[in-house]
């Protein structure tokens, strides 16, 4: 396996001799990329001589899809809006009758997106490689063709299930050449001298545009002769079935048979004997299969031929008629066309009402999950709660998952991917968490966006992990202020304690606080961890002291000391902080509190001296030395204060 095949059968090799003809490891990431590297074991075994001095490289292999082009990205971003609003409406419930208009509307929205994209791809980006653009346009055209057929057959179904009218419109809009040529011919001075005058007319007849045919015929110099007038009458009188026209299907059939009978009568009576061209038209009107078949090159494709045939043989065709008619049409065209294209197979499957096959074929042929995903979603909602379409639910989830996986792998479209993941069940939720968690946090802005998305979805663990990563990174950069902010956001007690320790240690070292305003305003976040509580309270003590509230400051300090919240390395600092308070002319520390301080001092003294005996060369040793020097001062101050306090307390009592 020394080459990686793409979605197509195309193969290519990594241009690296180290990899050549050798086993190598593959790590597949979350999304559509692989990392390929030489296998270490093998490299050592056989490559000792050959590869020495050669670089061993990792290759990241990514699949490239037309979805990443500028044009397709517009499609991706526009369709997500439609997708989401469709899901929302469907979740709100409602009966099948209420759902249908929405589904039709959304299906048309998708189609108009594809069409807009098609138009833009023609107008803009002339610098793009011709063949690429052409291929892209082809894909769009096919998608639109398939989607509009499915809309007719499954989504926008009419009462009675008669599909032909819509199919005729479908054929007309996808084979507009006849109409274009007609306008071209009519613009000239003598339309009937147009080289393909009659071909245009046949084409229009086959598409059922009879008014256009009459318009064309009226430009013929013999337009007021009998055959022409007779034909005009036939064309004018051809009945078209209107779903809401107030005519029942049975009544329509009667009328239609009457009209066709009239056509046949005129044919037999030789109305058109003088004009073989009109004779052909009349034969088409009579539904003469051989005539229609002989004109098949005007119809380009079998499905056009099928629609034209049905139009004049079975105008009340229903969905289940289509499969047979399609087979016939394919049979007929096979002589001319050698092979059935993948597109034909999709359309055929659609006419056979085999949705599963349609989705399967689309997935294989169209080289993009965009279309299959949205199509399956539409069909899923259309056949919602119908037993025989149960498979659509699971299929839809899988396809959405696949599509969002592709999107999530894109460096810029990951947000769109997450939006889709909201709609594919539990696996989607799990996937969304992984996608958000693994997003490289290149800046605060990205972090905030990831956090916001995670918070909206209540992925608390993701929020926590992102905040933790950001905090950790800030810590590495020595930005303690940011670190503690993120730490508090992550609600991670251990991590915030760690940062709080860092801040305290730095304070011990050089006597200053990082990001004091944050610490002063911690509020309830302070309770996250003991160390943070201590830090916050300690800052409060500073504030009180600065404001001259010595009494409160002293009480707070002593309670900090006695609560044992303070880490051991911070005790000396606390005692030193007490020094100016002890030296206050009016005693602010009570005798009770003084005892506490003395107890702490004693503990500290023992600890320091034992440490010294152990000869432990720690970083704080210098600090301890300094402390021991100050110890005398503190002891003296404590004693003085105790004396003053006892006197004061005694006085008050008496």
């Amino acid at each position, binding site marked *: 396996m020394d080459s990686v095949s793409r979605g197509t059968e195309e193969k290519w090799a990594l241009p690296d001799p180290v990899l050549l003809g050798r086993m190598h490891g593959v790590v597949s990431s979350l999304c559509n990329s692989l990392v390929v590297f030489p296998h270490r074991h093998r490299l050592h075994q056989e490559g000792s001589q050959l590869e020495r001095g050669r670089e061993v490289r990792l290759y990241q292999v990514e699949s490239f899809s037309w979805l990443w082009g500028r044009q397709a990205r517009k499609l991706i971003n526009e369709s997500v809006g439609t997708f989401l609003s469709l899901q929302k409406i469907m979740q709100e419930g409602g009966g099948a009758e209420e759902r249908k208009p929405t589904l039709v509307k959304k299906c048309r929205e998708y189609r108009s997106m594809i069409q807009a994209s098609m138009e833009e791809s023609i107008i803009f980006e002339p610098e793009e490689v011709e063949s690429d653009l052409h291929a892209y346009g082809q894909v769009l055209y096919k998608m639109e063709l398939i989607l509009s057929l499915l809309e007719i057959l499954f989504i926008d179904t009419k009462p009675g299930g008669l599909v032909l009218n819509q199919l005729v419109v479908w054929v007309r809009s996808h084979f507009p050449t006849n109409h274009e040529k007609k306008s071209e011919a009519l613009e000239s001075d003598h339309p009937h001298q147009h080289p393909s005058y009659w071909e245009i007319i046949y084409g229009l007849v086959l598409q059922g545009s009879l008014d256009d045919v009459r318009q064309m015929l009226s430009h013929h110099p013999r337009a007021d002769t009998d055959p022409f007038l007779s034909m005009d009458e036939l064309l004018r009188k051809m009945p078209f079935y209107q779903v809401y026209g107030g005519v029942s299907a049975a009544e329509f059939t009667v009328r239609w048979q009457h009209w066709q009978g009239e056509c046949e009568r005129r044919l037999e009576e030789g109305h058109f004997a003088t004009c073989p061209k009109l004779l052909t038209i009349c034969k088409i009107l009579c539904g003469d299969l051989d005539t229609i078949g002989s004109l098949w090159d005007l119809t380009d494709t079998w499905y056009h031929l099928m629609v034209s045939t049905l139009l004049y043989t079975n105008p009340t065709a229903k969905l289940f008629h289509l499969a047979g008619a399609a087979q016939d049409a394919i049979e007929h065209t096979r002589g001319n066309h050698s092979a059935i294209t993948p597109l034909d197979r999709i359309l055929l499957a659609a006419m056979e009402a085999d949705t599963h096959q349609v989705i399967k074929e689309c997935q294989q042929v169209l080289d993009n999950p965009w279309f299959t995903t949205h199509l399956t979603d539409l069909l899923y909602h259309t056949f919602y709660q119908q037993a025989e379409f149960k498979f659509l639910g699971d299929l839809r989830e899988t396809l959405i998952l696949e599509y969002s996986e592709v999107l999530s792998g894109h*460096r*810029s479209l990951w947000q769109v991917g997450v939006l889709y993941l909201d709609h594919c069940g539990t696996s989607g939720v799990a996937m969304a968490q992984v996608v958000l968690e693994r997003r490289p946090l290149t*800046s605060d802005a990205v972090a905030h966006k990831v956090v916001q998305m995670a918070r909206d979805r209540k992925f608390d663990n993701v929020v926590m992990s992102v905040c933790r990563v950001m905090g950790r990174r800030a810590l590495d950069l020595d*930005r303690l202020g*940011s670190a503690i*902010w993120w730490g508090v956001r992550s609600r991670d007690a251990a991590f915030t304690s760690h940062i709080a320790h860092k801040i305290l240690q730095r304070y011990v070292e050089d006597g*200053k606080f*990082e990001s004091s305003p*944050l610490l002063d305003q911690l509020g309830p976040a302070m309770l996250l961890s003991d160390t943070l509580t201590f830090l916050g309270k300690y800052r409060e003590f500073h504030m009180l002291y600065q404001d001259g509230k010595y009494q409160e400051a002293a009480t707070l300090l002593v309670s900090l000391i006695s609560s044992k919240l303070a880490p051991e390395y911070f005790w000396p600092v606390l005692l030193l*902080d007490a020094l100016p308070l002890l030296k206050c002319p009016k005693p602010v520390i009570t005798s009770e509190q003084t005892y506490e301080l003395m107890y702490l001092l004693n503990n500290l003294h023992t600890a320091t001296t034992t440490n010294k005996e152990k000869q432990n060369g720690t970083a704080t040793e210098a600090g301890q030395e300094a402390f021991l020097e100050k110890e005398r001062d503190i002891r003296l101050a404590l004693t003085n204060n105790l004396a003053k306090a006892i006197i004061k307390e005694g006085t008050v009592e008496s």
Partner: protein
Amino acid sequence: MTGGRVSSKKYVGSKVSIVRWRPAASHYTPTDTFVSGTWDDGENEVCVWRVPECDDDPNLQHHLTHQGNVNDIQYVTRDTFATASSTGSVHLYQHNVGGHLEHKTSWKQIHSFRTSHAPCTGLTSNGDQIASVGEDGKLVIINPGQERPVRTMESVGGCSVYTGGVLSCISCVTESVGGCSVYTAVYVRANEILTGSLQGYLRLWDIRAPQPTKATLHSLDQVGVYDLAVHPTQQHLVAAGGEDGALAIWDLRNTTQPFTIIAAHNGPMSEVSFHPGAPDHLFTGGLDGQLLHWDASASATPTHSHITPYTPTRQHQGGSVTVWVSSAVCNGCVDTTSIIPPSPLPINSLDIDGTTLIAASDNEAIYTVRQVMLY
């Protein structure tokens, strides 16, 4: 309310982080050109767009690749604008005749961490100098004519140094970079800059003074400040868009607490902007995909509330009395309307000129909203 409003959405094929109207040539002709910047893409771009007079979508005039994400764009003069890059650099671009852009100069990596570059997050200009802030917590003053930044102020983020006033025994005063990300900066007056940071501090700087901090304002609960906007005529009034989606109105004459806080968005706010000509109206965009129009004109005193058609040529009379510090606003009595149907992805930026508003989103779309109702 929505009667005359026409909004359109143009998909541009890359996530747009910022949009800015080019200043109008004169008071009499509204501007029809704006610039946009993209982010989070393999190759980011700065683009110039022209908005046609009819209701069509804007047309792309020209685009240039930009190194790193475009985090902010700020016009210095009518023809030149600066961009803030995620690589920590500031670039200066110029509009040339024929709608083309030209890259004039760069100040490379003026924001950096100890080991790597720090994204530059915001720019502001007083028409003469450019001030840039970054995630490293620095405020850098740039003179467009000079190669080197004029002045750099560190620890703008409020992670300032506390010099242990109480403690005589352990004391040491050195300058250190605490480094909280600063997200936004805005010129309040010619020489005064207000910065807003991750931790929710607003700091007022007087860049002439040797000790430049003038005041520090704290938002409640360390709610990060993502964007600041100064009232166009009453420069002591500042609107701050926060992480919690609430709009805080600050009166800089009283820095102890915000005048009022009104919650609106369901996620962090990305941009706040007063209407330059009718400052009773304010617009905000948020990460929740909403674009809101805040209309405080109803709280104006009766003399100002009569219907007057908006004309950009005339000084708006609301400039003399500000409704934003009225008691009604204080009670949260402001009309907020959503201008566009909420986008599923964040609205990153917006800008308004005259009656046309433009907004950019992560949905790779640029919104153009015409006839935004102003009265």
